[in-house]
């Protein structure tokens, strides 16, 4: 029951928000906050109730739902060590997103409803154990996201929103075909069962099926060259949506690759491992190169996400126990760090109303707290030890080095580049001579801003200094998958 409650808590909150009468629309944020906080509390409770010694899925719920021609789509939820941390990450970032949206005054009911449905969709993706249910949740996120970018965004928001939807739609189109072919072969959508099956006589070669699924996930991750929607979506989305996008939506791609591609078709993953690693390494470098030329803070952060998610793909592709765990850790770390980075950029943008690096500068003097947060997030992003990103990156590198030295060497060069773009950005935005047009702007000062930033920063540090907290949970799940790969 917990999982159902958890997944649909935000949706229920969304319904309540929508039903609020117009004169109470300023209460929308409180309802949203209450709903997401409840979800967060519940997920944390589950996190600690999670039995580390048990293998397999926990908090399982399953019942038949819809008959799709011959066999059932089940309502089948459950979490394991791979998804549990992602669930907590999602609930946490949702709360943070709601908090930093507190100053939204344009149609708040619709805004929060979209945000909450988005949360339900992502939670559903991370907990669904039926492939079609997974797909349902995967698609559910599209329209709220479209509206969030298109209505509450800035800049070329229509273009970006459409681009986002079409990219995802195209990716998921291929994914759907892959899902149906797999399901036809085994007469089930059950991920657990599919994950134990060997496939023979699929309609098209299994490696093609793998590719179909992979494209769907790769768009989301995103992998070069399917990434160009990301900078556009990020730069034009409102802050909270950027946070959700970078923080959890991208992780759906990585999670999907591990949960579906690798677990269900380990043989194919192994055969084509070198390609994934190569693409991952190229993503790291390519993303970093382009990041170095960005002049818009948000686009810069977005391209850096491309680079960082390349590390995830690198870890997955290397198909080692350590590398996969590292990739998972990287997803979590990147979610928090880039989430924080976008929060800081958002706070800054709220005040200065520009994201042009050339127009900014010297903010450390006028807004010391925001500047500190930016520096912190920046260093998290470049993989500073004692912060979450470092553990993740180095675990991936260590895990992948044995098998693909060249790819890891490429990727660690990307780490140097990341120092380049982060520090360049900090130098231009935060440091440098004071600009008097920003005099009189307020620093981070509201409680909701403080709590969102502090919470994120605290988690970044926590994951950086106490990796065992999550590693002990992730590792058994990864080892389960590795058993499949090994055999």
């Amino acid at each position: 029951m917990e999982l159902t409650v958890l997944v649909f808590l935000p949706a229920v909150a969304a319904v309540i928000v929508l039903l609020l009468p117009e004169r109470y629309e300023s209460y929308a944020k409180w309802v949203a906050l209450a709903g997401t906080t409840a979800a967060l509390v519940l997920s944390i409770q589950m996190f600690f109730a999670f039995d580390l010694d048990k293998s397999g899925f926990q908090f399982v719920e399953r019942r038949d739902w819809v008959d799709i021609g011959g066999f059932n789509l089940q309502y089948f939820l459950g979490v394991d060590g791979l998804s549990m941390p992602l669930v907590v990450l999602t609930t946490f970032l949702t709360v943070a997103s709601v908090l930093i949206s507190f100053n939204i005054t344009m149609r708040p009911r619709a805004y929060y409803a979209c945000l909450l449905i988005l949360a339900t969709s992502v939670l559903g993706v991370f907990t669904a154990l039926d492939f079609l249910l997974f797909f349902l949740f995967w698609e559910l996120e599209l329209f709220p996201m479209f509206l969030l970018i298109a209505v509450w965004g800035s800049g070329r928001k229509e273009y970006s929103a459409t681009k986002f939807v079409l990219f995802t739609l195209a990716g998921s189109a291929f994914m759907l075909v892959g899902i149906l072919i797999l399901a036809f072969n085994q007469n089930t959508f059950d991920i657990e069962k599919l994950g134990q099956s060997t496939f023979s006589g699929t309609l098209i070669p299994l490696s093609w099926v793998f590719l179909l699924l992979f494209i769907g996930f790769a768009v989301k991750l995103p992998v070069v060259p399917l990434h160009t929607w990301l900078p556009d979506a990020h730069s034009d989305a409102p802050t909270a949506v950027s946070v959700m996008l970078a923080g959890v939506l991208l992780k759906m791609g990585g999670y999907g690759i591990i949960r579906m591609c690798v677990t269900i078709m380990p043989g194919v993953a192994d055969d084509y491992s070198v390609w994934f690693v190569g693409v991952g390494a190229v993503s790291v470098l390519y993303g970093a190169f382009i990041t170095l030329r960005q002049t818009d803070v948000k686009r810069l952060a977005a391209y850096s996400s491309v680079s960082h998610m390349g590390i995830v793909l690198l870890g997955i592709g290397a198909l080692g126990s350590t590398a996969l765990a590292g990739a998972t850790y990287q997803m979590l770390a990147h979610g928090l760090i880039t989430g924080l980075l976008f929060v800081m950029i958002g706070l800054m943008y709220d005040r200065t109303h520009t994201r042009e690096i050339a127009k900014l500068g010297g903010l450390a003097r006028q807004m010391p707290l925001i500047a500190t947060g930016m520096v912190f997030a920046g260093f998290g992003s470049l993989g500073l030890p004692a912060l979450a990103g470092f553990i993740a990156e180095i675990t991936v590198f260590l895990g992948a080095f044995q098998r693909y030295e060249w790819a890891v060497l490429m990727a660690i060069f990307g780490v140097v580049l990341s120092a380049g773009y982060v520090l360049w950005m900090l130098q231009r935005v935060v440091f440098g001579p004071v600009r008097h047009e920003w005099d009189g702007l307020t620093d981070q000062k509201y409680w909701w801003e403080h709590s969102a930033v502090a919470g994120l920063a605290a988690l970044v540090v926590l994951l950086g200094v106490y990796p065992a907290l999550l590693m002990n949970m992730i590792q058994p799940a990864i080892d389960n998958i590795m058993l499949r790969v090994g055999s």
Partner: protein
Amino acid sequence: MNSLDIVGPQLAVLAAAALILLIDALVPQQRRMLPFVALGGLAVSAIWTTVWVARDDYQTAFGGTLSLDQYSVFFYYLFAGITATVVLASIDWVNREGRGQGEYYALVLTTCTGLMFLSAARDLITIFLALELSSIPQYILAGWGKDVRSSEAGLKYLLLGAVASALLLYGMALLYGVTGTTILPEIAQVIQGNGETNRSVLVLAMALLVAGFGFKMAVVPFQMWVPDVYQGAPTPVSAFLSVGSKAAAFAVVTRIFFEALDAKFLSDDWSMVFAVIAAISMTVGNVMAVVQTDIKRMLGYSSIAQAGNFMVGLAAIAVVGQEFTLGASAVLFFLAAYAFTNLGAFVSVIAISQKIGSDQIKDYAGLWKRSPVLTLALALCLISLTGIPPTAGFWAKMYIFNAGVRADLVWLVIVGVLNSVISGYYYLSVARQMFLGDSENTQPIRTSPSIGLSLGVTTLGVFVFGILPMPLISAAKEAAHIFAAK
């Protein structure tokens, strides 16, 4: 009398039509009642159908020309529902246009009767007559509007429809020539026996049938009338065309090809034909819709693309051996889901266009500020047409593509899913206009209760079946099961 009892659902509708004409002629001051009489007739029809379902006494009657089975019952409900929605959505328009109110509703109900007969007919002659009974009133209705476009639409529809009928008839004649009968099961028997010697005739007949019904289904290359007629005809009539006659055509094609032409040497041919037509229809419909500026015309092209989607199910019927009703049930389920969705979209368009006085998509700008409910309703329907959850359209696509994959039509399914990306583009562009654009006029849009009711029913259907599609799926499966029982 037992036989009349069997056609009770149709009779109820016809009786309502007659009653309407009578009231219109005798007590014209009571014209406001007319739509309610129509609704009453449809309700009686539905109840009568339910009685039959409750009796569980499925049978064929009239010398085998009509079959009351789960399949036809499914469509009785569907057509009654569609017609009721259309009637509700028409009230405003009919009151405003003022041309022959009684006749309008009577013709709508007559069409409905034709559609119902069409879904139940098991004989080529009956099928032809039922087809014409549903078509001729539609030709008239398409030309019902007083403006020149409406007449043009009616004339175009009729002349092309007549050519299509002639082709269809020639095909039926050939079928009759080969088999010596017009009753579907008997045709099937003869073809199973010695049909292969006359394969050429059968293929030609099949092609002509596909053409004749393809006209109603609106699949490429028989679709070209669709955008013109949808744009020109009164919007409620376009709505009726887009779901009613399309659904009936699919119903009857499924029945003919499944009951009469299911011999292996034929089904191999026509499944391929359907697959190719499906792929072309989707692509043409979607690509052409991209640059449309008139929402009715856009929906016309979209309905061509959707017809291509349905046809995936038809193509899938033939190939699969052990689960060969899957494709059929997919078609039925998709039809039902599509009926809710497309009606919802059209009703929204009726409600909106009436007030803003334009069908141009660009005039929908800023609609959200004027009428959030209408905007959301239309958006929901567009989402459903794209096939995004939580809507009935999602399950429909899921179901039909699953059937396609199971029939080893992976290429077709890939074409289908890619097409839904294109469709996403133009559906979204409508949504974009509504949510983003600005209009000087910020006056709220009020809708009449009748339109509100029809809109409520359809969008609720889209949403509820988007979450709990099982009842609809079971019904579709049960309906399609009659083909397996044979």
